[in-house]
């Protein structure tokens, strides 16, 4: 950093001044960064700490920051107290189904709107976009009635179906399809590729970043969903993690360490995936809003 600014004559004082400025900056910025970290991660770290405590230490006063002794008993016990594996299974099922359906349906809907010429194209597109602004007053209520009418009440399909396609995703993917250069398509056509081959074999792989954004958005939306599964599912054994934890938090409040352990287990997958794909997560979520 400092070397680029240094010229032979003034090298020493400039370097020293820059160094001092840098040190001052660090002395102010790092404490603030650490303080903010305590605030943003504190509640989860406190929950983690609680989940690792033995019974007597949970309500100890003054509170124990680092549990002593550390026990994993809450984590092993919680699987016996609630059907946690089933909830995890339900969540994985719901999320996988939701993400897959969105991927298929949204790319299939966005592609013709971006790259094919057919009558009514603009009308269809503008109708779709206009629903993003129109008030959707009875959304949840009417969809609930529709789900019952379709006989999908208390069924995982009924949870996923209303959000199996999102206009926001279609919009995002359409923008991406538009930017794919024409040459690829032309040469494939000359080689005699059919319409579907062009779509699935050439176009979809070309818009991988946009697809990653859609997958991340939907993965988070389905994994973290709360109220719609509560409305559609009658049988609590079919609950995904979010609703299950909400109800256990009300009913099992006397034994909080179990709730803490269950909650920690529920956030681990998404945090791990986030840490592995942090670039895509952040770029996707920020880019989608800016664009």
């Amino acid at each position, binding site marked *: 950093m400092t070397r680029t600014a240094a010229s032979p004559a003034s090298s020493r004082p400039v370097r020293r001044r820059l160094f001092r400025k840098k040190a001052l900056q660090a002395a102010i910025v790092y404490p603030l*960064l650490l303080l903010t970290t305590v605030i943003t991660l504190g509640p*989860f770290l406190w929950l983690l700490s609680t989940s690792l405590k033995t019974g007597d230490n949970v309500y100890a006063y003054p509170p124990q920051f680092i549990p002593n002794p550390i026990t994993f008993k809450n984590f092993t016990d919680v699987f016996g107290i609630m059907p946690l594996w089933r909830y995890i299974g339900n969540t994985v099922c719901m999320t996988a189904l939701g993400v897959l359906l969105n991927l298929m349906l949204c790319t*299939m809907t966005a592609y013709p709107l971006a790259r094919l010429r057919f009558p009514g194209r603009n009308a269809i597109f503008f109708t779709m976009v206009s629903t993003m602004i129109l008030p959707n007053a*009875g959304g949840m209520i*009417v969809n609930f009635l529709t789900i019952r009418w379709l006989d999908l009440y208390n069924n995982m399909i009924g949870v996923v179906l209303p959000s199996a396609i999102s*206009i926001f995703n279609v919009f995002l993917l359409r923008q991406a399809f538009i930017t794919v250069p024409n040459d690829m398509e032309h040469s494939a056509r000359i080689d005699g590729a059919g*319409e579907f081959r062009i779509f699935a074999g050439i176009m979809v792989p070309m818009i991988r970043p946009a697809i990653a954004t859609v997958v991340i958005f939907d993965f988070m939306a389905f994994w973290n969903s709360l109220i719609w599964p509560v409305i559609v599912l009658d049988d609590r054994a079919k609950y995904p993690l979010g609703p299950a934890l909400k109800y256990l938090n009300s009913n099992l409040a006397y034994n909080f360490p179990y709730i803490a352990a269950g909650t920690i287990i529920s956030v681990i997958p998404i945090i791990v995936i986030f840490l592995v794909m942090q670039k895509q997560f952040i770029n996707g*979520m920020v880019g989608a809003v800016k664009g």
Partner: protein
Amino acid sequence: MLASKLFRRQIGFAYLMLLPGSILLIVFTFYPIVRGLPLAFTDYSVVDTTHWVGWRNFHRAFTDRIFGTALKNSLLYVLVVPVLQILSILMAVLVNNKLRFVSFFRVAYFVPVVTSMVAASIAWKWVYEEQGILNFLLMKLGVVREPISFMVETRIALYGVMIVTIWKGLGYYMMIYLAGLQSIPGELLEAARIDGAGGWRVIWHVTIPLLMPFVLLCSLLSVMGAIQVFDEVFVMHGPLGDPAYSTLTTSIYSYKVAFQDFEFGYAATIGLLVSLIIMVFSILMFRYTRRGGLTYYD
């Protein structure tokens, strides 16, 4: 000849591709918009026969004390917007420093954004315990003498939930503002400095005006989210907005009226009134955004 054949083949293919998605959109997106409006003028419930009741549901809403409370709380909830935006801008400035490990902090601040509101609410409920860590720290620092009942005290319960909303949104808006800060051309800042502007004047006259489009966009997003707040209230205080309706918001109330009292007609009316409020808010903000010149810079 060949071109027209290709064109015809494309048309068929296009409609075929559009079909499945369109059916779902018609059923689950268009139909609710069309059906929601007349529903608000009926006494539809699952158990009874349905009648057209005219404006009765609207009269009921305007005289319904509980709805009044819910509406007041929802509007009060918009208070999170300025706090959230100012704090996220400060955080963005903080992580925009070119120092070692800064990217580690960026990631750490984003963790609450990706986790579920259920988990966040459970964690915060535990933080808010009367014997909990927050009261311990506040007492240790001498801010308060008696522990505060964040969950039970009617005057502060709603603010307790607001803090959770703010906390969970910080990382997200910070990232948008960071993108905004980094898109400001370095030459512009350089030019201002050469013209003799000091650090604060550069921030005030160059950085903030250029960041304005981002501020307006983020504010719009968070106003809409704030008025429709649901998950955190639902997990922390249940479908009645305990204690004594002090945390009841319109979304929670509409859920309770629809799915616990099964008065779908009245719930649709509430939903309609709330959508109208949101529309007014967003039209106002869109107009303001135009004037602010969102287009000029992007």
